[in-house]
């Protein structure tokens, strides 16, 4: 096994397969990928709403400080970017699979 240069790749493949098996077994425990993703999107949406609310309070003069508004907006921006990054990855993976030779 020591002179086999494919050894490490072999092992990582095995780990990957085990990971897939774990994901499949987790599906039964209602934590499917789509649910996790839905949860993430809901949280991003929540933060967007909070930022909207903060801005509304600022323009109506109810806000107690400017920095709270700015931080709310910044949180919304960062989480949205995170969501977009995940979406880009997903689409990339989908396109990669669609390009597969049959």
């Amino acid at each position, binding site marked *: 096994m020591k002179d086999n240069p494919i050894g490490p790749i072999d092992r990582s493949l095995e780990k990957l397969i085990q990971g897939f098996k774990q994901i499949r077994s987790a599906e039964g425990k209602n934590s499917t990928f789509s649910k996790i993703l839905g949860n993430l999107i809901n949280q991003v949406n929540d933060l967007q709403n909070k930022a909207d609310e903060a801005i509304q309070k600022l323009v109506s003069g109810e806000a107690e400080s400017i*920095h*709270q508004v700015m931080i709310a907006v910044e949180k919304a921006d960062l989480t949205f*970017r995170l969501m977009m990054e995940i979406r880009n990855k997903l689409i990339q993976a989908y396109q990669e699979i669609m390009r597969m030779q049959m």
Partner: protein
Amino acid sequence: MSLSSLFSAMEISASGLSAQRIRMNVIASNIANAQTTHTPEGGPYRRKEVIFGAVLESAGKGEGVKVLGIFPDPSPFKVIYDPSHPDADPQGYVKMPNVNVILEMIDMISATRSYEANVSALKAAQNMALKALEIGRRY
């Protein structure tokens, strides 16, 4: 897992910003009342000071800061001799607030700088998050 756990550093800096703003308010009222000889409690204005305390956001996520209270400065009032002042006692002495405007100015500079430091810490946390998002990019 909640997304808001990503922002504990930002929350801590935000607590610092709020605390410095309250400190700034107190300094402003000290400067504004440097010549005030009448207050609702009676007597001249007494200088106020903010006391900060650390609050644990949650275990392992650092501590934010909170204003524990605004307390009066117990040092004695300044007494000046001014018989023409309406608040002068029969001997002609007037009790003035125990505010030293120069010290208040120094405190104000310190509050401004602390606020800026908190903003810098917040920006660093934000930049770290943005850099982390770059991990997934190929281009």
